[in-house]
């Protein structure tokens, strides 16, 4: 979400009390609070990572987006639906990036999701939502998933009401018995039934404060949830196809269709290179994917490796005031001067980082550059 969301005219927007956040310091200056706010916004902390727990690495996630009347509300700009869908695009990208061997809505192809999301922007939001119906539908497909995968439903609920055809508490019991984990992100306020639903099924329930908080909450669901000890473990057959371009080995090679494009009319149909399933030699242009022919899960090794950092998260750096630092006041990563009032120290190599680098290391790199640097490589 790089582009600034299209702002409504000031007078069309909601009534806000922007001045109340600011407080004067003793000398009557606002500088301190402004800086504090900026600092805090940078330091939206990575959620406390739990250590040494089994995580469900293969996830089956259903995302349910409420499209009822209340999605037209303009408290997220330009309205809740558009904003949600934009964030969902980012979410889908991030999700597949971090969980390459998982699925959203029983589908592995992020591009398709994004296309679908784009289309949905024009949906006219009407009527009341039904928590029951959506849960039930998701459940119908999820219950056939194998036991070693996680079954998750993420609901983005804007409405405060649900029109159900039957008693939802019965359904919650069913969900619980089938070990489906339901999480809810509320766009307006805490609704009782969601509290019960998430508490019973072991999911998370959060209500957004604003757009950036919304994004943060969504990203929280990118991380795989801890697996329950009762879920079965099993060994899974996986294929690791190499990318081969046919033209290099065989002059007579002709472009061929990828299996993944069979069911969609869009996209380039023919290509020379691709990944070939080690079992049946079906061709795919993208990984990860489940082989249409033989049902084998095809991934590449980096995918698996990327899933790994969830299991071995980087330790949170220790925050300390700048005054306590002896020696050079430079960030070890970006080499910039440390100006903020807090610094962050890696627990193992004691390198010092600034806020931006701390966030970057934890969110993107997942390993401390100084630790790696200091390791004597055996080669």
């Amino acid at each position: 979400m790089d582009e600034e969301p299209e702002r409504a005219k000031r007078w069309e927007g909601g009534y806000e009390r922007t001045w109340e956040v600011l407080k004067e310091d003793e000398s009557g200056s606002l500088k301190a609070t402004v800086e504090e706010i900026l600092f805090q916004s940078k330091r939206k902390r990575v959620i406390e990572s739990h250590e040494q727990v089994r995580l469900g690495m293969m996830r089956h996630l259903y995302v349910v987006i409420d499209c009822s009347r209340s999605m037209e509300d303009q408290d997220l700009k330009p309205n809740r639906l558009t904003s949600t869908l934009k964030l969902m695009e980012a979410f889908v990208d991030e999700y597949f990036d971090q969980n390459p061997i998982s699925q959203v809505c029983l589908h592995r192809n992020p591009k398709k999701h994004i296309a679908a999301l784009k289309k949905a922007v024009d949906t006219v939001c009407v009527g009341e939502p039904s928590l029951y119906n959506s849960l039930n539908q998701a459940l119908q497909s999820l219950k056939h998933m194998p036991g070693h995968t996680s079954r998750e439903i993420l609901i983005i609920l804007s409405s405060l009401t649900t029109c159900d055809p039957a008693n939802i508490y019965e359904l919650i019991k069913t969900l619980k018995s089938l070990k489906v984990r339901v999480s809810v992100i509320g766009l307006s306020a805490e609704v009782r039934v969601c509290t019960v639903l998430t508490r019973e099924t072991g999911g998370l329930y959060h209500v957004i404060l604003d757009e950036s908080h919304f994004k943060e909450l969504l990203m929280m669901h990118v991380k795989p949830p801890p697996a329950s000890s009762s879920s079965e473990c099993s060994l899974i057959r996986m294929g690791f196809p190499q990318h081969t371009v046919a033209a290099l080995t065989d002059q007579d090679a002709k472009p061929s269709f990828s299996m993944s494009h069979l069911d969609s009319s869009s996209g380039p149909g023919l290509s020379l290179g691709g990944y070939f399933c080690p079992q049946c030699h079906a061709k795919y242009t993208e990984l990860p994917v489940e082989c249409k022919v033989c049902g084998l899960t095809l991934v590449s090794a980096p995918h698996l490796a990327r899933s790994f950092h969830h299991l071995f998260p980087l330790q949170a750096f220790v925050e300390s005031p700048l005054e306590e630092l002896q020696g050079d006041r430079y960030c070890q990563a970006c080499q910039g001067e440390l100006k903020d009032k807090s610094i962050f120290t890696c627990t193992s190599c004691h390198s010092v980082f600034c806020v931006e680098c701390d966030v970057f290391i934890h969110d993107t790199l997942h390993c401390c550059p100084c630790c790696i640097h200091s390791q004597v490589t055996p080669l």
Partner: protein
Amino acid sequence: MKLNIEGLLVYFPYDYIYPEQYSYMLELKRTLDAKGHGVLEMPSGTGKTISLLSLIIAYQRAFPLEVTKLIYCSRTVPEIEKVIEELRKLMEFYSKETGESNNFLALALSSRKNLCIHPEVSSLRFGKEVDGKCHSLTASYIRAQRHSNPNLPVCRFYEEFDAVGRQVPLPPGVYNLDDLKDFGRRKGWCPYYLARYSILHANIVVYSYHYLLDPKIADLVSKELAKKSVVVFDEAHNIDNVCIDSMSVNITRRTLDRCQNNVDTLQNTIHKIKETDAAKLREEYRRLVEGLKEANVARETDIYLANPVLPDEILQEAVPGTIRTAEHFVGFLRRFLEYLKSRLRVQHVVQESAPQFLKDIFDKVCIDRKPLRFCAERLQSLLRTLEIADIADFSAVTLISNFATLVSTYSQGFTIIIEPFEDRTPTIANPVLHFSCMDPSIAIKPVFQRFQSVIITSGTLSPLDIYPRILDFRPVTMASFTMTLARTCLCPLIVGRGNDQVALSSKFETREDFAVIRNYGNLLLEMSAIVPDGIVAFFTSYVYMENIVASWYEQGILENIQRNKLIFIETQDAAETSMALEKYQEACENGRGAILLSVARGKVSEGIDFVHHFGRAVIMFGVPYVYTQSRILKARLEYLRDQFQIRENDFLTFDAMRHAAQCVGRAIRGKTDYGLMIFADKRYARADKRGKLPRWIQEHINDGSLNLTVDEAVQLAKHFLRQMAQPFRQVRSTPATKGTEQVSTFVVWKGRWRHGYRCLNLAFQSQQLNNFVA
């Protein structure tokens, strides 16, 4: 946890204590030390009951001769049960800490309906039926008759209790109503009479207000309670009305008709008895000549609680000769009845004082004041003599005779209003004689006089100083405590304008104003879209609610609201209302969301708590003034002005604001709860109204939320609800209130949201408190 409160060791059964609980106990202790009365306000959900109980019990243990008994008066049976449960917890804590079993006896008392275990009697549905049936089985003369005729029905539980129950006292412990019933079943004793007997030696008695305030019941149940008792009235914000109701009498034509039947029955019975057993009547006559000396002796020795219906002077005298014989008395009643009938045949409203009434009755039917005063006593005596089994049938004649005694006893503080029809239905003749008490202090006076400490407490007693004035007593302590909150969990908003800048108000002139009604509808509609689960909306009266709802229906607002939430309406029918309530809660529970439209001063506004999702927002449409055109109210206001120098407007505002506070207070029932409080009337913004709200609500009204438009309120509410929906794991609680600053005692306090102990010196200034984490 053990606390040291000015040298008194108090056991407190929880690991943490809020600062306000500590200050509350401190004030309470000072009240007890001074042997005086107190008025204490503390918000609900802050552990008022347990603070009260632990301090008073500690006091009882420390000074067993100073305070012998705690009489805890609450309003409803569920509240009584709650108190008993807290008490049980406290007692368990005591025995765990001290290692010895204590010999405290605590019990709840309720009506026969809630305590009866007789298989036939307890299956009756109405309290009156149960009482009547019980009486017909256990009255002394019935049992005397049984000696001659063993075939008469009998209540074996009562017989068993009467035979052995009184010798063995109830073993120490805490008894709620069910415990008493169980105990009764095991022993085969009547739990009701057992409880009534046991309260005399119990250390703690928990029962309803009426057992102390209503002279008719108090005389039976509470008159022998020890003088050195502490009396607590919980939820006492309406205590003046309870007092007034217990002393007021309304007489309609139906009452008189039934009374006529009663008198006829009496006449017949007297005839019958005269033929069979004339000696009995002679015996009664003799007793009446001797007078009520016995009662007098008892009162002088201070054994009995004075009965306001039976004033002291009566006890000095014997029943006057004119009504001593049974026939004469019945004749007297007939005359009195005819007189009342003639008074009810009026075409216009009559208002007169008690002396005027007495003069008129003397002129018209030659009834003197003196025999009238003895009417109630004389009737009781006659009913006993005639061995009438079912007292319930004679309620009408009892009512009339009570009226006779009251009207002739009190020349002040009462007024008689005869209305030929109701104001709303001027065409239907329905004459009513209101004998209305205007002075609540009359009923409660014996209580203040008799018991050494009386504590009046509630979540909403502001402004505190008005209660001592209208109840006519001098408290030694008056204090109001606020809630210390870990987060601002209440959000009072005063909505004064609609989006079109039309002033919102329920005042009389704008009642019918279309724009106001539409804006009110708009407010509810917008709130229904942003508030999750349950909303409770209060109107000022049923009529107003009906008008508004009808109007909303025509404008289509209701239909729009129903898209967001279901709508339930409180009606005057109790069964219908409880049905609506049940469905309302169901709708809140399963996520559909619901709105309950109800009325301030109604059942919903007083007794029902809307915890958590059952009440995320309370909207008060208008200021709930009483119906000011009522003649009874006008008379009372006049009386208040003349006697207590309380201006009409002050009292009306006070009354309106206490009801408003009651209504909005329904939403917050504890510190983890949160809720919006929306006052939809521009008059709330005025200092005289706002200043009368309880301190714990007032604190959170800032200048920015005084005169909001609907839109502004919606934005604030949205923000508030999102804030509150964030996971609740704040460590720091807000610091102790000012009241505690003078105290120099160490208290161990355990932060509620965290497991570490922290030591808190309440004497520290508030800022130091936060740093003082051990």
